[in-house]
């Protein structure tokens, strides 16, 4: 079962259209809600006049921050995000009021009838300007959300030892998750006073915390239930808390179920994005290609609210040098508030930005030294037992070299590198091949406590309920967890039913983020299933005349491992256990191995293990039009152990496609806080015609901390292809583009599509 690829356990309902997503929910008496959005990116709210809106027939409630019974703001790290703006709006996605009505049309009409008086405040849209003295202050205490650093050795000394010091600046853009399902919730009040919010939730426990605090309810009276989730990629977290708070408030005040959903336009304007980064790298290197020092300064645009900025930038600071041996490191990363759409978690979580910078940079340095990019990397990459930029000694198989070799040899790297350079002299369309590699800390790391639980319940008929607090969002978690439970209990996957994720069924096991599900949740499921199996073995031992320790569960039987003929079928063992009064519900809790981080010193053992990867992109670029065609991608990823190889392949292909969009197409255009790309005709993600052939190469170096040796896969897949494409373009056309995305205009003209924004007004 482990290492096989059974069909998705939630596949049938999805191919038949039976799967029930948030937008498919319909409760009797349900009201529809609409939001009144801010009209300025930064303004003081002087007066909200809801009188006209309230008079419209069919309107059930018009609520503002004044109606909030609890805390008006929430935030997982910094409490600053207001689902209903109280006295100030900080970006155009803020809401000043929310309406519930009999129909969505009436609600929309009522929202439009709300009149708000503002006093416009000076705004700031560039995070670097936001950090300057005298910039308009967006939150009390200044615009700096956080400052993280790493310190290793002495960079001044490192630069002295260098033969060459190279300085480069890079920038990345704001991008949208573009899950095909937009955000939606239905809030309803049970007769016992419990508020249930069902919807397109990624992180049910953080949403519950926000809703309970907002409504002044105990956690036990708020229940967050996940509907089938139409994609998330890190995106349905804070913005779902926002929707849940608003809809919950309306349900509480009206006593009726309330649906609140974002249109695509609202989603693009209101929901958080991936951070734009401005990155300055200074690198010292010896003639022979040995790195001596790196000094890195990064400013991240956090937008109006902190959201995950402190954690996103922390992941960046840990990984900023890339998987290289650098003796002297000084990295400083600042998160800044602006009046732009706020930014937060998005598959990659602070790594796609820095990977773009350091992997572009590695090719640039190799070029300066007249070294081959692959050879240059092989000489500098981290090896087993070496020390990272944060001073962590790597005590697992460090496979970045293996990944580089696997991807490049599958791609025919050396031959193509040579041949394309030759052929390009006479070709109109230039071919290029580029690569990027990375390392990535698995799970939450020193962001906080990392622990999660699972419940395995064996029913009297031998069917099995599996419950965790982690969610399916398409990645295949239900299938992988069911495989693990089935494997340990010796039954087919079909016997396991993964329960819908619901805060009322299990204790808080943290969020489904950081590619932590398999390694953390999978380990918890395994423990719970083993505990359940041990009970069955204990129950069957007498009947089989064996010691429980001699028994095993295979092929729907509990049997003596050394003598398979002495066996009892699974259901029989269940009956024996129940007859003996045993509890066949097993709860297990898994806590991550110890890690530490010293924020002051800028060092620590940031993560308990890492994954390594390399992607190679082969492209064709039309140097005259700037059009890039991504022909083929080879992606080699060390996952520790692939529990479900087909699902791993799905993650790789999806991550690569997302990164192709990031690298060549996508940008949420904001001009003075106004979103210009408000639907999918302007915000372009790759179609099937824009994604070339993707070859997945799965590497397995089992990790001592992972269940069956498994580590992770979801996020590293999305952090490599943009720099691989940029490097391939440089190979093909001799043009180094240091700003994302590599759209047509930028390749031809070398500058941004939209003119520079004016300074703070």
């Amino acid at each position, binding site marked *: 079962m482990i290492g096989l690829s059974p069909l998705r356990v939630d596949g049938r309902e999805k191919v038949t259209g039976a799967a029930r997503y948030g937008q498919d929910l319909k409760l009797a008496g349900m009201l529809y809600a609409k939001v009144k959005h801010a009209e300025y990116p930064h303004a003081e709210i002087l007066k909200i006049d809801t009188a006209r809106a309230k008079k419209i027939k069919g309107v059930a409630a018009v609520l503002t921050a004044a109606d909030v019974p609890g805390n008006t703001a929430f935030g997982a790290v910094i409490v600053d995000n207001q689902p209903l703006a109280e006295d100030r709006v900080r970006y155009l996605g803020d809401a000043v009021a929310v309406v519930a009505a009999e129909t969505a049309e009436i609600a929309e009409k009522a929202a439009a009838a709300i009149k708000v008086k503002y006093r416009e405040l000076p705004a700031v849209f560039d995070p670097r300007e936001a950090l300057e003295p005298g910039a308009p202050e967006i939150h009390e205490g200044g615009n700096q959300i956080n400052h993280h650093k790493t310190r290793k050795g002495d960079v001044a000394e490192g630069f002295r030892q260098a033969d060459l010091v190279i300085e480069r600046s890079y920038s990345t853009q704001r991008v949208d998750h573009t899950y095909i399902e937009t955000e939606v919730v239905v809030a309803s009040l049970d007769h016992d006073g419990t508020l249930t919010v069902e919807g397109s939730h990624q992180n049910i426990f953080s949403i519950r915390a926000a809703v309970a605090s907002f409504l002044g309810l105990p956690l036990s009276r708020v229940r967050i239930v996940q509907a089938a989730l139409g994609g998330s990629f890190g995106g349905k977290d804070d913005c779902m808390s926002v929707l849940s708070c608003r809809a919950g408030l309306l349900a509480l005040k009206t006593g009726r179920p309330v649906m609140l959903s974002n249109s695509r336009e609202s989603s693009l304007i209101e929901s958080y994005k991936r951070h734009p980064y401005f990155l300055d790298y200074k690198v010292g290197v010896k003639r022979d290609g040995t790195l001596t020092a790196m000094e890195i300064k990064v400013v991240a645009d956090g937008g109006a609210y902190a959201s995950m900025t402190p954690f996103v930038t922390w992941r960046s600071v840990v990984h900023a040098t890339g998987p290289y041996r650098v003796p002297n490191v000084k990295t400083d990363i600042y998160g800044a508030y602006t009046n732009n759409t706020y930014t937060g978690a998005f598959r990659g979580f602070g790594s796609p930005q820095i990977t773009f910078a350091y992997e572009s940079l590695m090719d640039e340095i190799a070029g300066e030294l007249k070294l081959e990019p692959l050879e240059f990397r092989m000489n500098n990459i981290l090896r087993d037992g070496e020390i990272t930029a944060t001073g962590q000694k790597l005590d697992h198989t460090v496979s970045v070299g293996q990944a580089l070799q696997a991807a490049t040899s599958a791609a025919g790297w050396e031959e193509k590198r040579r041949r394309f350079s030759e052929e390009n002299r006479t070709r109109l369309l230039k071919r290029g091949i580029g690569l990027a590699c990375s390392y990535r800390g698995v799970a939450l790391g020193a962001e906080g406590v990392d622990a999660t639980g699972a419940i395995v319940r064996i029913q009297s008929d031998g069917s099995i309920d599996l419950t965790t607090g982690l969610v399916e969002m398409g990645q295949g978690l239900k299938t992988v967890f069911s495989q693990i439970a089935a494997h340990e209990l010796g039954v087919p996957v079909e016997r396991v039913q993964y329960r819908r994720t619901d805060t009322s069924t299990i204790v808080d096991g943290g969020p489904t983020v950081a590619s932590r599900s398999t390694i953390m949740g999978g380990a918890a499921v395994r423990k719970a299933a083993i505990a359940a199996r041990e009970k069955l073995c204990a129950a069957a031992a007498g009947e089989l005349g064996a010691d429980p320790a001699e028994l095993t569960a295979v092929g729907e039987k509990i049997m003596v491992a050394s003598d398979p003929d002495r066996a009892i079928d699974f259901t029989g063992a269940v009956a024996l256990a129940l007859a003996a009064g045993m509890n066949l519900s097993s709860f297990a809790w898994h806590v991550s191995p110890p890690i530490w981080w010293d924020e002051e010193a800028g060092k620590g053992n940031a993560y308990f293990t890492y994954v390594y990867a390399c992607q190679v992109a082969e492209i064709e670029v039309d140097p*005259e*039009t700037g*059009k890039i065609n991504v022909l083929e991608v080879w992606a080699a990823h060390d996952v520790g152990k692939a529990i479900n190889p087909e699902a791993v392949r799905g993650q790789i292909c999806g991550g690569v496609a997302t990164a192709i969009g990031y690298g060549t*197409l996508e940008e949420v*255009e904001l001009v003075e806080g106004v979103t*210009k*790309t408000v639907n999918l*005709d*302007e915000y*372009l993600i*790759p*179609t*099937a*015609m*824009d994604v070339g052939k993707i070859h997945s190469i799965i590497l397995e170096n089992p990790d001592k901390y992972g269940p069956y040796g498994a580590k992770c896969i979801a996020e590293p897949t999305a952090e490599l292809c943009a720099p691989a494409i940029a490097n391939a373009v440089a190979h093909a056309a001799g043009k180094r583009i240091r700003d994302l995305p590599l*759209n*047509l*205009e930028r390749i*031809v*003209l070398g500058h941004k*599509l*939209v*003119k520079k924004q004016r300074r703070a007004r």
Partner: protein
Amino acid sequence: MKFEYQRPATLEAALKFLAAAGGDCAPLAGGTDLLVMIQEGLVGPRTVLDISRLEELKNIREEDGRIEIGALVSHGRAAAAKLLREKAALLVESCLQIGSPQIRASGTIGGNLVMASPSGDTIPALYALGAGVVLKSVTGTRTVAIEDFFTGVKKSVRRPDELLTAIVFPAPEPSARGFYNKLGQRKALAIAKVSVAALVTRKGEKVEKVRIALGAVAPTVIRAPRTEEYLAGRKLDPETIAAARSLCAGESRAITDLRSTAGYRDRMAGLLLARGLEDLL
């Protein structure tokens, strides 16, 4: 989206309704643009006049050296039509560049013209073909040269009581060759950043006649008269093409917007023309 809905059974009934409606009525052909505009609040007609089922506007035929395409022929059907594939390949190519299969299945040739977007894909091809637009009302029928049809972004000379019923153009001479070249940010579902269509008729080695149209570089699709004039009577060789390229870039009058920049568009107008002409060599 609030409106009354009417579905007349015949063209005659549709025209009568339009005449009576006094302007506050939007004819619905494929709906792929109109319904988006209504939803986005860009237009708010009192009545939507559903003409999508008028079979008499769905014919493609050739008569006396003229090709006529009914306004309600979908882009998908036009692209598959044997007559057009043989005689107006550039129009077929422009139809295939529209949106996605779903959009091509619903959206119509006539609708694309009535929406009057400067980046509408079929429009430059129809300019190059020298098409005329047939407008019908209860008071009569008139044919307007396609270049006179558009008056600005999303504006045309169609009166509110008129329906665009057909597009007509002379069947190109067998020796005529054309092309439609488009640049979009991605390969499907992309609105043109810039597009160029041309139809070239040659006599011997020399260009006898050429019509060039540029999309998305002005408030309407435009011709490139100076480039056309330059090319007439010349042999298509690399030198001529290079000169035509820079003339054409000079005739582009692009602006910077969300989709591209003026400088890039002007340059690409020249390039796309040159590429198309090179393919004819």
